């Protein structure tokens, strides 16, 4: 990794005293000589030393990474998670990912054209979102961040609905209960507590629905996320925490947020954590499905860490060349989620050329539809500023609305007078 954390360079006094500081190198060279009772400490020391040397290498070659489809498009088996999909389902997942990417690219280009104020691209995270999104039942409930465009697609949220807030005509605006897809949340991590509370309600109702909370590697540092882990564990809430570790919180690599792989955090709270290849749609589907089923059975929360990569900028306002190298992106491009499924579909003859051609056409139709819908999106009426501030209304809001209306009308009068 290019950026080493302060913690790695300057061990604290406490870690020095337990031998994890300056003595790391020695410990690593002769682990076998350690007395048995110190084995655990030594092992932690060794892990820390390896992480320090090259944290990303450790993460990427994690033997616990669940994978069912390799970057080369080869199906592999996993002892714990399996999946058996029909050709239709496989083609469906591919179609979802391609259309999501097309929609995302259209939004990026609409931002460049000035039609949107901002866009947060999901480029590279299609498998994590489609795999987890397609694991859900209709009665399950989704609590997204502001980047879950692929999950929204799976829930049946019209893609153009997502663009209102990025255009600046509303703050979300859709009815969360239409598709059981809560509004996008911009403040980092808040929604994990909402998801937990919703799940507590599901359990109280005796329903067997499950809830899924999306968040990122950066959010994992927020107090709200830690509290949601505590609450969900204590109340055994039927919630799946789906963390898309896309390696970057704007300019900060995951090493600035954590010194252990994120999925391992779950253990400390008393529920299981799984790391899945976030660019493998099959593995994401299988792991999320299993976690949701566990929640339905009343066995409580699961943390799924989808190990993926933010191929683009944080948002269209961001310039990643300031903080990361092109080579890193290139390495992840070789693990592209869409490409590997295409390779598999082709090599297994699950999809033919006609399928890909017609999907290409469908993508263009979608792009055009989104483009036209956004351009036709009217600016809100300024008087709408005063709408829906309170469910029960407010005399103060009414007074300000009337004053503002009179003020606006005074310009209309002067225009008339001018004529």
């Amino acid at each position: 990794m290019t950026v080493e954390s302060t913690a790695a360079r300057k061990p604290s006094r406490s870690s020095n005293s337990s031998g994890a500081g300056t003595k790391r190198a020695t410990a690593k060279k002769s682990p076998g000589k350690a007395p048995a009772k110190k084995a655990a400490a030594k092992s932690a020391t060794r892990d820390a030393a390896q992480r320090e040397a090259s944290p990303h290498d450790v993460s990427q070659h994690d033997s616990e990474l669940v994978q069912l489809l390799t970057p080369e498009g080869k199906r592999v088996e996993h002892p714990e998670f399996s999946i058996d999909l029909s050709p239709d389902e496989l083609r469906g997942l591919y179609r979802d990912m391609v259309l999501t990417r097309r929609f995302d690219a259209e939004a990026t280009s609409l931002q460049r054209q000035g039609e949107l104020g901002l866009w947060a691209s999901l480029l590279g995270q299609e498998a994590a979102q489609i795999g987890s999104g397609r694991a859900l039942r209709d009665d399950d409930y989704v609590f997204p961040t502001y980047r879950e465009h692929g999950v929204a697609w799976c829930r049946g949220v019209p893609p153009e609905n997502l663009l209102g807030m990025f255009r600046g005509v509303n703050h979300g605006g859709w009815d969360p209960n239409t598709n059981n897809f809560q509004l996008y949340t911009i403040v980092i991590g808040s929604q994990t507590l909402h998801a937990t509370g919703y799940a507590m309600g599901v359990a109280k109702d005796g329903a067997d629905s499950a809830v899924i909370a999306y968040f990122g590697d950066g959010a994992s540092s927020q107090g709200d996320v830690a509290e949601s882990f505590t609450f969900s564990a204590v109340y055994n809430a039927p919630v799946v925490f789906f963390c898309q570790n896309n390696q970057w919180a704007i300019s900060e690599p995951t090493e600035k947020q954590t010194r252990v792989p994120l999925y391992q955090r779950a253990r400390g709270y008393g529920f299981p954590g799984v790391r899945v290849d976030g660019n493998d749609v099959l593995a994401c589907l299988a792991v999320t499905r299993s976690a949701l089923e566990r929640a339905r059975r009343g066995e409580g929360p699961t943390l799924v860490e989808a190990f993926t990569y933010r191929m683009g900028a944080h948002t269209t306002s961001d310039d990643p060349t300031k903080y990361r190298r092109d080579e890193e992106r290139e390495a992840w491009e070789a693990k592209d989620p869409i490409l590997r499924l295409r390779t598999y579909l082709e090599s297994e003859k699950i999809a033919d050329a006609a399928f890909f051609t017609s999907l290409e056409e469908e993508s263009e139709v979608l792009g055009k539809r989104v483009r036209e819908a956004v351009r036709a999106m009217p600016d809100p009426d300024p008087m709408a500023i005063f709408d829906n501030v309170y469910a029960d209304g407010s005399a103060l809001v009414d007074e300000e609305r009337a004053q503002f209306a009179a003020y606006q009308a005074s310009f209309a009068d002067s225009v008339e007078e001018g004529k």
Partner: protein
Amino acid sequence: MAVQKLPIAKAINESLRKALDTDPKVLIMGEDVGKLGGVFRVTDGLQKDFGEDRVIDTPLAESGIVGTAIGLALRGYRPVVEIQFDGFVFPAYDQIVTQLAKMHARALGKVKMPVVIRIPYGGGIGAVEHHSESPEALFAHVAGLKVVSPSTSNDAYWMMQQAIQSDDPVIFFEPKRRYWDKGEVDTDAIPGPLHSARTLREGSDLTLVAYGPMVKVCLEAAAAAQEEGKSLEVVDLRSMSPIDFDTVQASVERTGRLVVVHEAPVFYGSGAEIAARITERCFYHLEAPVLRVGGFHAPYPPARVEEEYLPGLDRVLDAVDRSLAY
């Protein structure tokens, strides 16, 4: 080179650079402040020159940023922390209100909290939700906190120097839509105390009081009113806590009329405090009630209607006309 023409963002950058250079106890902390130099580039280049030990990219956790700044201050450091956007300060609100503000009093004065919390605030940049708010009254209401906002490059430079030197916690609101406005910075001449107001334009008919991003609007309003034969005085408050009431009072005693302008909602806003105090101090001088121009009692709206929501030239002049009509 004592006098330079700098944008406000760069003036703050230079001020932070000087503080890092002259006081080894000064630290910069926040999300993306290091390698990236902050999302507004206010800390650009500082990590490169002063190292990761002093310009610290923190985990993404505002409560953690302020909470650890309190600990560092207890240990003798002077942390200058950045909250990335106004709407993201609230995870840290508990640490700021219940701990940072009260520590000095609870320790009977034996502990000092020289922490500066930088917050880019206000609207007008076409941003999404939580990126355009003006929450200064929520901090000014809390005893133990000092709350300031510069409106010019020179003030940005000097007020940051003074905020860092202050032994009290200072919430430093930076007018983000003015970050790129250029102005002269004289690095040799301190313009005055941190908490003093300043009269930027003299006039005889009415006093406009503003701070931060609204100062420019008020100066434009005064220029427009001049063409209609109205003489407006413009006072840049600079500090919302404490408030330099003496300067405002002296102005109102001459003009007899006062309009307070801020982006923040009028209801329970700093304008309410100014109106109440000035009414007490200047009751027999006032020719009209103190009027306020500001945001509405509604969530900050989507970007496409923020121009209507934000007080602009016309809204200020409308209030001026109403005041003069008394």
